[in-house]
């Protein structure tokens, strides 16, 4: 918990004066104390904005005090992208470059070369295993392997939700071999992957729904929040955007009371969840698609769920309010058009590069403002994954310490 504080303290001690000429410091000031986060006597907003700026707070000043270190960046990039230390030749090629511009050219070239190494395939597969929280068996490897293959081939991130074939490739440590999933049913990227369905099997398919939300939107439920909460007679208001009665409860045909307001307002999450989960409910515990709902309920005897447990008659499945999705391919198409999904993809690569823990499990948020440039480039490229990795690992933030 204190590790960043320690680092910041160390960085503050190590931060050179504003005369380093990297453009991040403070004007022409040569004060030895500029950069110590205190506006010392003799320093002004003009000569040392890092310490004396009235517009930024202590955190802005800390950001301004970072300096570029391409050798430190090279070490981190090498360990993350290849799993190995850089060679002494590569270290020296950066260290002996004439100036920061030359170092940047050399560094960017080395990172680009790392993305073409065999080791990168293994590293990116490990990244996706961690992201998907599954792997190390033939069944559970297929989804992360598909994502890794997309990345290595600079494919579209959105294929994770929309690809209609070749979704279960294998990897022998060197080569990706395309393969089809053999679990039947519709095909939509990893949304129909048998390993995902088996790994996140649960009552009502809610765990599968949660996995999709947290992995690809980067937030826990509730996913949709109304501007104006509504009093539904409970101890707290209902904050969802869907009509309260758009999901099932004991008063409209369900066996579990998602309308309950006595403990908390279950509908705050379940209005979204219940419109998605039925799409995943036909997969059994082994991830095989069945023609009928095949997930249990937590009721006595664990009977299989019914559509009427999720939604009242006339209500249809959907990704979000007023974004209907009749089946999993439609769900994938809706996710492709969701800006939050796009931003989440960038944020996950960003957090990997900067060494963060899981964005949802530990709430390691990445505000959109931090990654605006990368999101725009990601969108413009057609969501190409290897380009995204390169953009993040060569970003200004990645090479500053």
């Amino acid at each position, binding site marked *: *918990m*204190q*590790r*960043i*504080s320690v*680092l*910041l303290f160390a960085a503050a001690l190590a931060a050179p004066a504003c005369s380093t000429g990297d453009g991040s410091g403070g004007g022409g000031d040569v004060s030895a104390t500029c950069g110590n986060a205190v506006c010392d006597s003799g320093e002004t907003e003009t000569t040392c904005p890092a310490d004396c700026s009235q517009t930024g707070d202590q*955190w802005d000043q*800390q*950001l301004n005090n*970072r300096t570029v270190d391409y050798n430190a960046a090279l*070490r*981190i990039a090498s*360990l*993350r992208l290849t*799993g190995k*230390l850089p*060679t*002494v030749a590569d*270290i*020296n090629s950066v*260290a002996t470059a004439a100036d920061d511009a030359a170092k940047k050219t050399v560094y960017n070239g080395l990172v680009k070369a790392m993305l073409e190494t065999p080791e990168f395939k293994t590293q990116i597969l*490990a990244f996706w295993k*961690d992201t998907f*929280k*599954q*792997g*190390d068996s033939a069944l559970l490897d297929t989804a992360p392997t598909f994502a890794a293959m997309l990345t290595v081939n600079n494919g579209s991130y959105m294929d994770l939700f929309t690809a209609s074939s070749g979704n279960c490739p294998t990897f022998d440590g060197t080569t990706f071999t395309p393969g089809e999933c053999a679990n039947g049913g519709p095909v939509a990227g990893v949304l129909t992957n048998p390993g995902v369905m088996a*790994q*996140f099997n649960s*009552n009502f398919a809610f765990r599968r729904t*949660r996995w999709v939300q947290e992995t690809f939107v980067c*937030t*826990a*439920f*509730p996913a949709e929040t109304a501007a104006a909460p509504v009093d539904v007679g409970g*101890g*707290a208001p209902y*904050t969802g955007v869907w009509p309260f009665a758009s999901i099932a409860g004991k008063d409209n045909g369900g066996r579990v009371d998602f309308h309950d307001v006595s*403990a*908390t*307002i*279950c509908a*705050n999450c379940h209005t979204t969840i219940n419109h998605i989960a039925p799409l995943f409910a036909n997969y059994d515990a082994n991830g095989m698609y069945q023609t009928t709902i095949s997930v249990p309920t*937590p009721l006595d005897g664990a009977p299989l769920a019914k559509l009427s447990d999720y939604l009242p008659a006339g209500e249809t499945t959907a990704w979000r309010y007023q974004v209907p999705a009749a089946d999993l391919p439609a769900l994938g198409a809706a996710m492709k058009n969701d800006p939050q999904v796009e931003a989440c993809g960038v944020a996950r690569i960003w957090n990997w590069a*900067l*060494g*963060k*823990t*899981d964005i949802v*499990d*530990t*709430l*390691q*948020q*990445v*505000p959109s403002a*931090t*990654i605006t440039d990368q999101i725009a480039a990601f969108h413009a490229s057609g969501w190409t994954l290897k380009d995204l990795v390169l953009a993040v690992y060569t970003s200004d*933030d990645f090479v500053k310490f």
Partner: protein
Amino acid sequence: MKRFAYPLAILASSVLASACTDDLPPSDPLPPGSTQGGETTTFDHPGDSISPWDLLDRLTKEGPPSFTSHMHSCPKVKYATLGNILTGVGINAANTTAVSAGDLYTNGANALGAANYPNRIRENVAITTSGASREFDIFAAGAPEVIAAFTAGTIARCPGAKLFDASNACQPEGITCLTGVPATAEHVQFCNLTVTSASDVPTGQKLAVAAILAAAYTCE
């Protein structure tokens, strides 16, 4: 404080809503993957919510997301990467000899926070006491192998690099090879001080190598 408001608001809504209970989150959250509730209350909802107090403490110490998202963190070296690093500095990561570096590594996956995918747990990248302790033990046990590899010149990453010269003085190119960044004068000074302060030179060299590795690989 406005910069802290958004993450706290998200946390508050997710904790209260996902737990489906109006009780405050438990002061000691359940282990990841646990469930809580029953048919008469809220069935089996996940019990792995984030403590808002821990989050507030983190935000206060580390700064708001608008700051921390721009900064590198200090993650531990991933398990597989550590194996590559050991190999890259001349240690046999597959050594099965009891309490050798390879043995400590091979049998240290749990302590080092490796993934547990069957239980839907990704590899932990946070530094833990057990993980750091095991890693330092590995480096201490492996130091003789590192020195021997440099002496024999068998480290392919760093052809010709020497860790110590004939007078047992630390060499910057050897330290660069160990750490992955150019050695500074302070690195060399620290190394020499460690060697000369020990009871004898061989012990000092082992200590120096282990200490440099431990310092370099506390964070990836």
